[in-house]
């Protein structure tokens, strides 16, 4: 019974393949030794481009992730005259176009964090105890391992990504008199780690007031909602333009980041463009060899009565299957590789990498398009003056 079923299945399969012997997938499946290298070349090209772009893109992405705390508050710092902070505070209270949820006066010290392109500066905020609790709440950092820094003590709280990035544990030095990159006159110990994805370093304001130079207080302005925060940020940019104040807002960070990477992306465009051109020329040559090996087939089919258009359609469909197949496999492989890179190389140091970076995958689009154009052009040129009689007379074999 089972043998009969197997035989019936085999017959059905044979009938199907014999009913459509010239289906595009037939050639590809029955000549996997020839089609697999073509698919592999496209796959590797997609993998290469997506990988390069995702890694490049991880730099501005890191900036956005590391400094994303600035989405929650507008920072305003006096310039030239440190005594102007109360005046700036008055301006904000009087002229702010949105409700203010909280207006915080704070101090700042600087530390550094690591990135794949070196060390970047990061702010250590000095806050009063109640402001510290509010700030942590706004950044989803309510859950803390350890405790908050005590008033006036050389203590700090960092978030989990910062701890991972700097290799800090409770009891480690966040700032130290012997560390030129993370300087403080006393050893500032980590006493708490906040479990949030945001990057945070906070200490008590009294410690900074007593020990940190320059003695400048600045403002943090919190709006109730992200929309109102955005409106507040844009207002502050215009209001304090040309005045003795410096604005810290997320949209300015984004703008500066985009400006900074504009040239880099132009260079990347040229590099990727060249790469696509090289791959396309190589694939064009491979396709030409691939088609040359099938001259007898094309000649025979044309002699039997298949039109050039039918043959061109069939070969085009085969090319589409190979190219799209290679592209899709390449996308999945790139995604898999980026996941592995993220898990093994980036995450342990809290470096940012987006395995599903749309820019990286968008950059791979020219590959299938250019290869398809080259393939169709190659085939069309071959078919244009192709004479099947040359094949059946064995002049072209």
């Amino acid at each position: 019974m089972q043998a009969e079923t197997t035989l019936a299945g085999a017959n059905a399969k044979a009938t199907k393949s014999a009913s459509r012997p010239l289906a595009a997938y037939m050639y590809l499946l029955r000549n996997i030794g020839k089609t697999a290298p073509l698919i592999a070349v496209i796959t590797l090209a997609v993998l290469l481009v997506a990988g390069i772009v995702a890694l490049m893109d991880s730099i501005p992405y890191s900036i956005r992730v590391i400094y994303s705390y600035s989405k929650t508050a507008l920072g305003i710092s006096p310039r030239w005259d440190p005594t102007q902070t109360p005046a700036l505070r008055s301006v904000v209270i009087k002229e702010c176009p949105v409700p203010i949820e909280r207006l915080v006066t704070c101090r700042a010290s600087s530390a550094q964090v690591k990135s794949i392109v070196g060390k970047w500066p990061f702010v250590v905020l000095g806050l009063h105890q109640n402001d510290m609790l509010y700030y942590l709440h706004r950044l989803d950092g309510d859950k803390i391992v350890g405790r908050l820094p005590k008033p006036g003590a050389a203590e700090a709280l960092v978030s989990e990504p910062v701890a991972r990035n700097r290799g800090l544990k409770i009891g480690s030095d966040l700032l130290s008199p012997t560390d030129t990159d993370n300087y403080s006159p006393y050893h500032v110990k980590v006493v708490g780690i906040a479990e949030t994805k945001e990057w945070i370093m906070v200490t008590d304001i009294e410690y900074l007031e007593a020990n940190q130079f320059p003695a400048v207080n600045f403002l943090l302005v919190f709006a109730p909602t992200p929309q109102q925060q955005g409106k507040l940020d844009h207002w502050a940019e215009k209001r304090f333009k040309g005045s003795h104040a410096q604005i810290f807002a997320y949209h300015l960070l984004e703008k500066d980041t985009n400006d900074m990477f504009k040239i880099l992306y132009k260079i990347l465009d040229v590099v990727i463009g060249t790469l696509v051109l090289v791959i396309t020329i190589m694939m064009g040559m491979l396709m030409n060899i691939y088609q040359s090996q099938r001259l007898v087939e094309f000649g025979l089919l044309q002699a039997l009565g298949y039109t050039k258009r039918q043959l061109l359609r069939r070969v085009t469909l085969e090319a589409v299957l190979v190219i799209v197949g290679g592209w899709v496999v390449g996308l999945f492989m790139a995604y898999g590789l980026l996941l592995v890179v993220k898990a093994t190389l980036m995450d342990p140091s809290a470096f940012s990498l987006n395995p599903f970076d749309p820019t990286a995958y968008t950059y791979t689009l020219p590959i299938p398009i250019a290869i398809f154009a080259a393939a169709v052009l190659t085939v069309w040129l071959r078919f244009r003056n192709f004479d099947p009689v040359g094949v059946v007379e064995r002049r072209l074999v």
Partner: protein
Amino acid sequence: MIQARGASLVYYDHGREVFACRNVDLEVRPGEFLGILGPSGSGKSSLLYLLSGLKTPSSGDVAFDGRSVGDLNDEERSKMRLNDFGFVFQQPFLLGYLTAIENVTVATVGKAAYEEARELLDRLGMGEKSHRYPHELSGGERQRVCVARALLGDPMVVFADEPTASLDHANGSQVVHLLNQHRGSGSLVMVTHDPSMLAEADRIVELNDGMLASGHQATEVATGH
């Protein structure tokens, strides 16, 4: 059914005119086995290409069912070959990645074609080997697959261009016999240099230097069929 009137085919060899066929007047009649006999280089194959629409005449005319082949565009000529003609060439050209039965159904598509192909292969003694690939078949077997492919769909004319050239005499005779036996009501036009292969032909014309023997008129050899 097919009529050639003053048909010539000219090749250009380094700018020099070479007549492959010259002023050929010939008719292929419905249901007949027409043999075209001639030595190597006499233009037999070129005449076959003209009659089958694989080539268009440089001058003169070839008409199929009253329609001039020269008036048809490339696509119409292809359609005519696919629907109305069958071909067997000197070499048993088969697609290496397809089985015997798949190679037969290349000539047309659909499930009905599969059934007909299976029946044809059975009749040609290839039923047992219908799922073998060409490299698993002998030369004679491959040519029989080609015969099945040519006969699929009951074409109005089967053109055979030296179908026995790559076979020994016994295999060659068998292929011709099978072609003739299974062509049904269709005509068979066969080109060969070997007169013994035309033993079953209804009519034979001889070709020399691109011209039919006895001036421009076909020399018809009575064969008794």
